[in-house]
């Protein structure tokens, strides 16, 4: 490349030189790197504030909630002002947002922690062999248990799962393997809508349906199963659909190339590949409905004694049992009833968490091996 300066006259060159000097002078004042807080500044400040907050709480100076709020606000203010001095307004605002977003997450964890500790500490009192071996038959205040309710929950949820899984799975297969055109679009949309049906409305629907055949005031376990199915089917469809989508098309095409009919391809190639994911989805769907209270309260009701026949009269379920013990606690033995309510809640949360863990385990252990 030729240097264009050679063609310039002298005066011009002087102008250029002056401009360059001015620019250099300006640049000399401007640091090449912008200021930044020391590397460990933010975590250490946070640590200091957390320790101060814990100290203030432990010494009884402040309540736990107030100490927590002061810790978060204090840290945010200090780091913002410090960064504003060193890094300028943009960097400071960035740090402010980081602090706010992180505290929001911590804030959301508080109810989870609080719920779990409350349930465990309150439920432990009656979480004993008596609780799991007795029903409430003839119990006025002390003793009694939720054996009948636990069995009822398992029976009703089991029947619900037996009904929902085939329907959900077949619908998912239709949507992925067969569904074309308007019908499939409508079904997809309404499955989404169905996910949002309030559980109490599902209960009302089942009551309205069965009342037509059995007359007013009808209650039975099977009605609860149907109501839970209405809630469970869309969840099963959604998760099964996601899993079937993951099955690579090459597998299907290889099977077709070997002249395997479509239905055998689905049964022998597609489903086994997606099985782990589908099992995970079904487990999560069961976990989702096993704790439902409202539809069971309306359709199944509650009993004091054993009734394990889902087609005959009222049954007890853990969630309704818990609500019943809470809502109808008589004045003279209120705490005994509350203890049973909490123990039922603890049992329920243990079942749900176990199912959640089981789902993760299935997903991990039986996932189809992929080429990494």
């Amino acid at each position, binding site marked *: 490349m030729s240097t264009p300066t050679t063609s310039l006259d002298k005066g011009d060159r002087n102008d250029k030189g002056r401009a360059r000097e001015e620019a250099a002078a300006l640049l000399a004042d401007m640091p090449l790197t912008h200021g930044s807080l020391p590397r460990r500044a933010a975590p250490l400040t946070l640590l200091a504030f957390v320790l101060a907050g814990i100290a203030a709480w432990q010494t009884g100076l402040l309540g736990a*909630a107030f100490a927590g709020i002061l810790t978060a606000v204090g840290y945010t203010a200090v780091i913002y002002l410090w960064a504003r001095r060193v890094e300028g307004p*943009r960097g400071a*605002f*960035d740090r402010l947002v*980081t602090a706010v*977003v*992180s505290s*929001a*997450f911590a804030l*959301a964890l508080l*109810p*989870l922690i*609080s*719920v779990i500790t*409350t349930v465990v500490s309150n439920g432990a009192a009656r979480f004993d062999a008596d609780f799991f071996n007795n029903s409430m038959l003839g119990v006025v205040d002390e003793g009694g248990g939720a054996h009948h309710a636990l069995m009822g929950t398992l029976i009703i949820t089991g029947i619900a799962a037996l009904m929902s899984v*085939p329907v959900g799975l*077949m*619908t998912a297969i*239709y949507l992925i393997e067969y569904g074309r055109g308007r*019908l*499939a679009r*409508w*079904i997809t*949309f*309404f*499955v*989404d809508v*169905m996910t*949002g*049906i*309030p*559980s*109490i*409305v599902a209960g*009302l*629907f089942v*009551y309205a349906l069965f009342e*037509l055949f059995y007359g007013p005031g009808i209650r039975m376990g099977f009605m609860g199963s149907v109501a839970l199915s209405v809630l469970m*089917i869309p969840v099963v469809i959604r998760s099964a659909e996601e899993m079937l989508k993951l099955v690579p098309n090459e597998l299907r095409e290889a099977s077709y190339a070997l002249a395997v009919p*479509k*239905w*055998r391809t689905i049964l022998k190639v597609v489903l086994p590949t997606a099985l782990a994911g589908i099992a995970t989805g079904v487990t999560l769907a069961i*976990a*989702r409905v096993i*704790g439902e*209270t*409202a539809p069971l*309260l*309306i359709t199944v*009701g509650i009993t004091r004694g054993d009734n394990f026949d889902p087609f005959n009269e009222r049954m007890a379920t853990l969630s309704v049992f*818990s*609500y019943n013990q*809470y809502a109808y606690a008589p004045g003279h033995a209120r705490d005994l009833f509350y203890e049973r*309510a909490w123990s039922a*809640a603890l049992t*329920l*949360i243990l079942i*749900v*968490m176990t199912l*959640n863990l089981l789902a993760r385990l299935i997903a991990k252990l039986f996932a189809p091996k992929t080429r990494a």
Partner: protein
Amino acid sequence: MPPTTTSTRTRGAPQRLGDRVFSGASTGAGVLILVILAGVAAFLVAEAWPALWADSSEIPGGDGIILYIWPVLFGTLLSAFFALVIATPLAVAIALFITHYAPRRIASLLGYLIDLLAAVPSIIFGLWGAFELAPMTVEPTRWLEDNLGFIPLFDGPASPTGRTMLVATIVLAVMILPIATAVIREAFLQTPRLHEEASLALGATRWEMIRMAVLPFGRSSIIGGLMLGLGRALGETMAVAIVLSASRDVVSFNLISSENPSTIAANIALSFPEASGLDVNTLIASGLVLFAVTLLVNMGARAVINRRRDFSGAN
């Protein structure tokens, strides 16, 4: 259209019996979904019908069906609205934290923790709200009444038990957080990586990158996720039924007193076990209203989310 096209169109491979059975069964299952949903609407209408045309003096309260449903509908909308107000900033912040702030290695674990919130049965949230949260709010609500009492929301008198609309909305907010967060998180994760990197390369700070690349991309998902949460809050039953001390025929914006409007779902759960005759039809009519409201909200939410799916840069 020339007639030849119809005659030359064949069905590809010959249909085997197994194929026909299988495709028929799966199509049937799909149609069953539509039938169930139509059945929900039809049976609710059929059972609500007698209450809709009954003499107004026969309806509980004696003022007719509209005046019976209005206070509980008001309570439903009020509680869901304020739950949404509380949950909105939190859900966006949590989704941002999990997708853009948390260390990559533990991000999915943190997401799982938030999902665990969704797994907790509503009855447990109810017991927790009544026994743990409500007593905690007694002091703060008294303070609110004394110092911010000029705002209608905090008019008071503050409830001595804490079983107020305020606690119900907080519990609802906690319960809708996971679903709203899940949808928003999904959208934030799909933000085109190149947009983010381009923004950072131009010297944007992390927050500026989020404001310019992530939030605009996720806007409709934020709306959709929150509307899904709203649908959940509208229909939530047991938590509200346990937490809220409700009175009949109250229509008030006062969040902290012990005189609260009930919600449709809670009212059904509390009244249904002892109801008979026309009372049942009245309750089912209110359930029909709830069904219609949640259906509208959910369809709106899905429409918003699906529109984004069509136009997003991710595909």
